[in-house]
């Protein structure tokens, strides 16, 4: 193993890891937003909104994320959406993981005991108040871990935007594989950085989960 080379090019990988972190943070935030909207739509009383929510989840989860990235980045200009590769990557990844988060959030909300809802309504709380101060706090606690799993998948999923030439970790690794002919070393460098990012995210999820746990 060529450790000299690995040390020499490590700074380039660190810079690329920062891009991967930015991609993850931005698309993660967007995913949470899409997930919240999607879950609200799927649980709404309006059949039209329920249909839109269900279609969003089914179409996005039924097609490859790579194709979704391509449609937005390469197909976007045909319908008047001109985006930089990084922006297209963030939007497509966020919209994609949002569909998975929709199901996570919906699952957490409907697994809160029905009796809680009925009791709150009986006590005179409105539908909205019941959701806000009874159902949601309990559901939030249930969704932290599964959302963490979604985020974990998202971090690895950011590698897809290497295909539209965003200079993140996988793209950088691929470029250095091409120029150094050392695939194993490059894989190790990029792989360890991915795992470091995922590890730190995991610590954050654990911390949130502990804080939210019932004392």
């Amino acid at each position, binding site marked *: 193993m060529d450790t000299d080379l690995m040390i020499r090019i490590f700074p380039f990988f660190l810079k690329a890891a920062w891009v991967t972190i930015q991609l993850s943070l931005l698309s993660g935030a967007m995913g949470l937003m899409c997930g919240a909207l999607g879950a609200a739509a799927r649980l709404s009383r309006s059949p039209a909104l329920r249909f839109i929510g269900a279609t969003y989840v089914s*179409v996005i989860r*039924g*097609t*490859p*994320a*790579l*194709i*979704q990235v*391509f*449609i937005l980045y*390469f*197909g*976007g*200009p*045909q*319908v008047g959406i001109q985006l930089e590769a990084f922006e297209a990557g963030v939007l497509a990844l966020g919209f994609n993981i949002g569909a998975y988060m929709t199901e996570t959030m919906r699952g957490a909300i409907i697994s809160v005991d029905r009796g809680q809802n009925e009791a709150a309504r009986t006590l005179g709380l409105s539908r909205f108040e019941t959701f806000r101060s009874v159902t949601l706090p309990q559901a939030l606690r249930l969704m932290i871990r599964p959302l963490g799993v979604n985020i974990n998948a998202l971090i*690895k*999923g*950011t*590698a*897809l935007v*290497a*295909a539209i030439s965003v200079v993140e*970790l*996988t793209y950088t*690794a*691929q470029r250095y*594989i*091409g120029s150094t*002919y*050392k*695939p*194993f070393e*490059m*894989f190790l460098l*990029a*792989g360890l950085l*991915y*795992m470091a990012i*995922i590890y730190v995210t995991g610590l954050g999820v654990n911390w949130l989960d502990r804080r939210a746990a019932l004392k």
Partner: protein
Amino acid sequence: MGLDFSVVPPFAGALFTGALWTIAITVSAAILSFFGGIVFAVIALYAPRIIRLPFRLFAWLFMGTPLLLQLFLIYFGLIQIGIDLPAFVAGVIGLGLHYTVYNSDIIQSGILAVDKGQYEGARTLGLSRMQTLRKIIVPQAVRSVIPPIGNNMIALLKDSALVSVIGVAELTLSSQMAISRTFRPFEFYVAAAACYYVINLGLEAGLRRIERRIQLAR
């Protein structure tokens, strides 16, 4: 430039061939990852430490890194050590190994969930350790974890799009070739997405049938 989906039908044949390749890759990698997952699970649970450790390390590396990165490693790495595999084979190995690790995780929990009495009963009846695993434990474990493995197979179908980057002419790359002739990315990527969606529906229906069968067999 407006949208014009009439550019798609002339390439329907090419897309169809691409879709067949997508199915071929998915099925091959699914089979590899299913049996690989069983082997991995048994090794992770029962093999002596010296054998178990490298497998653990491998699983840890493959679970924590993106599939695309692994495909680059396998495709370029094998060439470097003198093995020049066709892209299709490299793609199947990459996808297969990736999902082997995920399936192994599920199958391990399935094996651990099989009642201990089954093992003891089989040993008492005179079966060897290996026979007990092969004929008693693994079949029951696999049956109980078919639904989560099915979910992995659905994910595998979608991830098969990634092997287009190492040059396998499946559905995604076929649509890219059509795009390079027509300069109509939107239409062709949407058409490819529709094909994936249809294949996905078929796969889901197939998995539901298998699950029902297993439930009946119980």
